[in-house]
Each structure stands twice: as C-alpha cells, then as structure tokens.
C-alpha cells in the first residue's frame, strides 16, 4: 500500500517555500517530487529593461545569505564586456571581502542544519553570534549589514579603513578557537553521528551524471573547484587547495564545509600580508556607461553553494539576454535519486545537507 504525504509549502525550517510530495511504502521512501515556483519573480526578464549597473541590486537579492558573491559575479561579467580590468590592490580587497562572506554563509548553514536534526537552538544561537561579528566588520567597511552593493567597475566603492588589519586578525583568532569548540561538540555527539553517517550516499559517477556542484560534488570524490581550475583574482599566488572527501554521505558534506571555513581563514591571513599599497576605487556610476566591446560574455565564479555562471548577450545600454546558472537549482533535482530507499526520518538530514536557498532555485 503506497501512501502520499504532503510536506507543505510553509514549514518551520528556514529554507524558504518548498513543497514536497513524498510517496511512502511503510517507512521507506519510494519517490519524492518537489514543486517549486513559489518565489519566482522573473529576474532574467527584469534585467532586460534596466541599464547595466542598475541591475546589480537585483542580483544581490537572488541569494540573500551571501549577497556579495552574486554582485561580484555580475559586475565581473559587465567588466569583461567593456574591457575594464581591476588593478592589483582591488583584486586583493575583493578576495578578502568574498572570503569573509563565505565564512558567514557556512556559519548560517551550520546553525540551521543542526536545527533540522534535533539539536534545537544551541548551535543556532552560537553560530548566529559569530556571524553577527563578521557582519559588524563588513558594516565598518561598506556601511550596511545585509545588502552591500559595493562592487563598481574596476574596483570597490569604498576602500578598507586604516585599522582594518588588526581588527580582522583579532576576529580570525577568535574564530579559530570557536571552530575547535564546534568540532568537539559535534563529532563526539552520538545523536549527530547516528543521523548523518551513512545517510544519503551519492557515488562519484552519479554525481557527475546528475550535474551537481559545489561541496556536494567535492564530498563524493570529484576533484573540481573553480578557484583552482578556472582561476580568477589572485588565488594562484596564495596556493589554494580544494578540500575533498570520498564517502559521499551527509557527514562528508558537513566535513567539506567545515574544512572550507578553515581554508578561508588561511587565505585571508596571507592576503592581508601580501596586499600592495595603492588605490582600489572603481568608476562611479554615471548616466552614460562606457562603450561595450564584446558581443557575448561567459563568466564563472565559485559561490558558497556551488558554481555560478553568467552568459550574457549585450546591446548598447542594456543586456539583450541575461542567462543565469544558479547552483541550488540543479542540486535540488538530485534529491529524487539520493533519497530513494532511505527512511522517512532521513529526508530532512539529506535536504539540510544540500544547502538550498529557495530564492536561488526560483530566480
């Protein structure tokens, strides 16, 4: 006897608005079908009606947990269309701010993942406090807590303040101590280990065939990272190493993100030492933008959730077609294959470890 259960659009987890229709046989899952589109507002169509730099604030609201990464992706595409290159100091400044954004995004993921598993609200309040300290530092630099809009053509809008280096180093020392506490709390906890080890296994060939990206791909043993293979800014000088695990279950996906946070701390420390003096300001936004030189542009970046890509066909003052590839869209389509054969209580452990943000799925 097959029964159908509806996990409705509004449920008390903070992924957003998602509806799942689960077909069960006793306690085993036979089929999962997601219904999406509750947050679709047509960003690709809206961008065809705006000037180039006016749609930068639209791109930030696609993923509201790590907004600076998307605005960097879009401004890099426009820069390549116009033939503008940022100078050395601007590359270092952008890299430091982006890696701080990556740590903040993974901290929020850790808090809500532990909420779903049953360790109610302890890790949530700890990680939100750490994320608040990082957002305070970014507020000192850019002036706002959540939607920064600080990327300009050729650089940033405001340069780093003079005492940034000592504040950043103090914060990084504090974060290293806290990460050791998190590991002791979670990896010796029998509830966490029972619910994540051996749950939701994704093999290497399936991961490549299904097209998943980001930490989900690296936890199954595939050695691919945009920061090393299609390198941008100064990642080659700082000797960046991607983090790989081989088992492919929920515990491996947690471990990859934990190691990525520690790697980001190392990158920020070495970037602060090697940064040259100079001027990192970009062009201010004017009514008439610089002339466009290329017809078609392709740009890739490593966002905290996976790999993002923009393919843009340009016109004189506004884009003719803007096509976005977001990582959460294709990660959600792999849920059907991972959850087959698992028990119903494992569904939320798998869904939480894929790290979805629903506004990213529905563009």
């Amino acid at each position: 006897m097959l029964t159908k259960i509806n996990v409705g659009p509004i449920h008390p987890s903070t992924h957003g608005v998602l509806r799942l229709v689960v077909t069960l046989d006793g306690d085993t899952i036979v089929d999962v079908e997601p219904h999406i589109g509750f947050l679709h507002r047509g960003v690709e169509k809206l961008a065809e009606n705006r000037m180039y730099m006016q749609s930068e604030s639209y791109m930030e609201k696609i993923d509201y947990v790590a907004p600076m990464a998307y605005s960097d992706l879009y401004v890099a595409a426009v820069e390549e269309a116009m033939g503008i290159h940022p100078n050395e100091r601007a590359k270092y400044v952008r890299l430091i701010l982006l890696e701080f954004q990556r740590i903040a995004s993974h901290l929020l993921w850790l808090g809500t993942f532990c909420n779903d598993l049953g360790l109610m609200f302890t890790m949530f309040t700890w990680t939100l406090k750490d994320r608040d300290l990082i957002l305070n530092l970014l507020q000192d630099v850019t002036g706002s807590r959540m939607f920064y809009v600080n990327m300009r053509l050729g650089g940033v809008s405001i340069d780093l303040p003079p005492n940034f280096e000592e504040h950043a180093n103090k914060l990084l020392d504090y974060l290293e101590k806290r990460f050791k506490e998190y590991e002791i709390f979670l990896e010796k906890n029998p509830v966490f280990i029972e619910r994540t080890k051996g749950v939701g296994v994704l093999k290497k060939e399936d991961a490549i065939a299904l097209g998943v990206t980001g930490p989900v791909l690296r936890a199954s043993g595939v050695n691919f990272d945009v920061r090393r293979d299609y390198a941008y800014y100064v990642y080659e000088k700082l000797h960046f190493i991607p983090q790989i695990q081989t088992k492919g279950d929920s515990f491996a996906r947690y471990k990859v993100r934990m190691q990525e946070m520690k790697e980001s701390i190392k990158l920020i420390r070495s970037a602060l030492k090697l940064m040259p003096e100079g001027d990192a300001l970009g062009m201010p936004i004017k009514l008439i933008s610089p002339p466009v030189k290329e017809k078609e542009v392709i740009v890739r970046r490593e966002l905290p959730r996976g790999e993002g890509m923009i393919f843009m066909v340009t016109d004189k003052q506004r884009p003719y077609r803007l096509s976005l590839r977001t990582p959460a869209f294709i990660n959600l389509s792999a849920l059907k294959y991972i959850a087959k054969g698992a028990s119903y209580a494992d569904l939320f452990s798998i869904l939480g470890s894929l790290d979805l943000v629903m506004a990213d799925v529905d563009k």
Partner: protein
Amino acid sequence: MKINKEELIKKLKELSSSGYNYLVKITAVDYIDHLEVIYFIRNMQNKKEENVRLDLKNGESLPTVIEIYKAADYYERELSEMFGIAIEGREVKRLLLEKWDGLEAPLRKSFQWGSDYKSG
C-alpha cells in the same frame, strides 16, 4: 560549434563518450525570427569546455537528450515553459509557472510588459 538539428543526438553521443560527461547548462536566445539553443558541456578530466549551438525556427520542436545526460531534466522543463518550445520524446510538465494557466512564454520578446501588469 554550430550544427543542424538532425545531427544533435549523434554529436552529443560522440562527445559524451569521448570524455565530455558533465552538462553545465542548456539555454536559448530569442532573435525574433528564429531561436538559438546552446548546450554547454565540460570534460572533467582535462577541464575543457565546449558549446554546441543550433538554430530553431518558430514552431519547431527540440529532441530530448535525457538518455545521454541525466541532468537535462530540469533545464528542458524550464526552457519549454519560458520560450514555448515543444520537446519531443517525453512528457514535460511545467516547473516554475505551475499554477498559472494564462501565461505563455514570458521570456520571448513579444511578451508585452503591460499585458499582465495590472495590480492584484
């Protein structure tokens, strides 16, 4: 590389057995008298990327590639509802505009801004 619609499946099978086994995205651009559909595929061993383009006239249908790449499921569903292309070979349901029957092909250039623009 630019190919015709009839050699699409043969070309993709040849590429996917020679190492290009990861599908990045399927997208389309609307030039008003014809559409251009682009497939982005990647080789995971030597990290090279290739894009395959073809031209579709208005009203033609596109063959499905789901036997070659399993990741094409969501991309084809989104393409068929946003541009109004029919997919031959399997049954596609709407993905993002599920509850809305009157809306046809919003990403085409002929979709007027004012047609569904009244508030409410």
